[in-house]
């Protein structure tokens, strides 16, 4: 039940966001192109929780990040094998950094938790289909004690498709 509630709230929020964004687009011939892109984003968000059920499913964000990076650095194909490996490791690292940054920002804006360190264990092999799938998460919270642990766990689990039991909160 909790899962459906989260999903519906998320989809409703995105729909409102999409309508406002569509209003912002100037009325030109470009409008339909921008609309298609916004529609794709909505589709990705609706699909995301369904993918969470599957064991081998990839994380859409990770795929988007990967192809975004490879598109912008089109020289990738011309690199030697060794350089390619290095670049792949770099992409995975960058994605992980961005993810932990995002979780930190989210905790700060929603629960006013500052100075949280996020440790992420995820599939880091870029060639694997399930690249970006988070296996487990450890949050190191410093100082702060006044927060609802269960709620934080539920939020992270809903946003990032991590099973509740794999999220640990450590207070220091």
């Amino acid at each position, binding site marked *: 039940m909790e899962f459906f509630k989260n999903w519906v*709230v*998320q989809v409703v*929020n*995105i729909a*409102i*966001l999409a309508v*406002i*964004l569509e209003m*912002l*687009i*100037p009325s*030109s*011939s*470009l*409008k339909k*192109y*921008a609309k*298609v*892109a*916004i529609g*794709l*984003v909505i*589709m*990705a*968000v609706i*699909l995301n929780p*369904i*993918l969470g059920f*599957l064991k*081998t*499913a*990839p994380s*859409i*964000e990770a*795929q*988007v*990040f990967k*192809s*975004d990076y490879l*598109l912008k650095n089109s020289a990738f194909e011309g690199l030697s094998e060794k350089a390619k490996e290095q670049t792949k490791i770099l992409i995975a690292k960058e994605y992980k950094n*961005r993810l932990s940054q*995002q979780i930190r*920002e*989210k905790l700060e*804006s*929603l629960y006013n938790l500052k100075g949280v360190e996020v440790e992420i264990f995820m599939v880091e092999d870029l060639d694997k*289909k399930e690249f970006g799938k988070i296996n487990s998460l450890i949050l190191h919270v410093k100082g702060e004690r006044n927060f609802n642990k269960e709620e934080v766990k539920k939020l992270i689990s*809903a*946003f990032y498709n991590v099973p509740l039991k794999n999220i640990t909160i450590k207070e220091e």
Partner: protein
Amino acid sequence: MEIFQIVVLGIVVLIILTVLRETNPEIAVILSLVTGIIIFVSILPKLSSVVEVLNSLARKSGLDTIYFVTTLKIIGIAYITEFGSQLCQDANEKNLASKIEIAGKVMIIFLSIPIIIGLVEAILSIMP
């Protein structure tokens, strides 16, 4: 009321332009460019607060930042392309205007390709 200021500015420039177009069309183009920029700059603070609200809404709804940033970029490209192509059309350079529009379209498609690829990969992985 800022909208009054903007509309009055627009009307004044319009009257000047109708005269200028017949005598010196070169200056008319520059005048309309400058007016366009002034109007655009005057709405920027409002636009930025709208984006701020949208950003907080996006964070609450669990939208990944990569999506949000991409959408905002697309909207920005649409605005700038529109601005440039309208200006070219004002100066009777239809060719240039359509080229600018093509560039804008290509940019938007380029930005949305990663999302398309991500979606396709995800959908393919669901299929048995």
